[in-house]
């Protein structure tokens, strides 16, 4: 059972993601998570105010079911498929994070400095959480897709817009990691 309980290597993860994409297309759908954000806005009644959000969300119900499945998948793996919460990141990464002020990097699944309840209840912590969410949601819909729709599906289909979007993902990620995170922490 250890091969299931231990973290899975990249060469298992990548093919499994391709399998998920294959199954979605095989069953006549597509692979794209961020459009669910719009669907949820529409269910919440945003269509009354914005015509681009005024669509029949029931046609996209399958994708919400998919997302609900991912929540269950997260729960299952957390409850029954993991031995511990450590993440075996590069020792250099641990050292870089220690210098930034992140304690115990890799000893837990997520850093308390961003995700703990205490951090969430601080002004700075709250602003980071909501601000990052805003950037991801706005950026994904502006770009027309996120990692699933552009980086996996779009690149697999050799689409130029997805190639440009992924370059954008990296420009943004590198600016954040190398320039902004050291200012925030």
């Amino acid at each position, binding site marked *: 059972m250890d091969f299931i309980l231990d973290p899975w290597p990249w060469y298992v993860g990548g093919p499994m993601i391709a399998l998920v994409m294959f199954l979605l297309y095989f069953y006549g759908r597509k692979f794209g998570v961020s459009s669910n954000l719009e669907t949820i806005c529409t269910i919440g009644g945003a269509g009354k105010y914005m015509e681009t959000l005024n669509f029949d969300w029931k046609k996209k119900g399958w994708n919400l079911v998919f997302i609900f*499945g*991912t929540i269950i*998948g997260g729960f299952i793996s*957390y409850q029954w498929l993991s031995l511990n919460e450590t993440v075996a990141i590069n020792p250099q990464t641990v050292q870089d994070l220690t210098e930034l002020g992140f304690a115990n990097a890799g000893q837990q699944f997520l850093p308390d400095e961003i995700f703990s309840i205490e951090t969430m209840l601080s002004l700075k912590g709250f602003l980071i*959480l909501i*601000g990052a969410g805003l950037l991801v949601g*706005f950026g994904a819909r*502006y770009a*027309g897709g996120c990692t699933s729709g552009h980086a996996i599906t779009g690149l697999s289909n050799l689409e130029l817009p*997805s190639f440009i979007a992924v370059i954008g993902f990296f420009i943004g990620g590198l600016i954040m990691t190398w320039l902004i995170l050291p200012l925030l922490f």
Partner: protein
Amino acid sequence: MKNFKFLLIGVLFGIVLSKTEVISWYRIYEMFKFQSFHMYGIIGSAVVLGIVVFYFFNQGKIKNYKGSQIAIEAKEKGFARTIIGGTIFGLGWGLIGACPGPMFILLGRGVFSIVIVIIGALLGALLYHALKKKLPH
């Protein structure tokens, strides 16, 4: 319950991203620091296999469950939207270490603070639609 299969595919996706630590903030930070092959291996191998799968889809060698051709919807074109939108997305991804899929998977792992991130992402999508006509695409 014709959608039940999508629930199962979602469960699989949630377990895979959880077990490969793609949803760990540390892995995304490490990726943007170029200090590990892990994330590149995952995305790279998914894309290489995806290219093969889509080739067979486009050739009609693999049909869908009804036996008809699988059509892949092309992404909307536009340089400004993809480069600017992509960069904004990347800033958020680098900060919170989670893109839209992982946000929901982390919710399943009981990470309460991710609720704030999801609310932010919903507001972000809403804001995009509010400003859509004024933005370059």
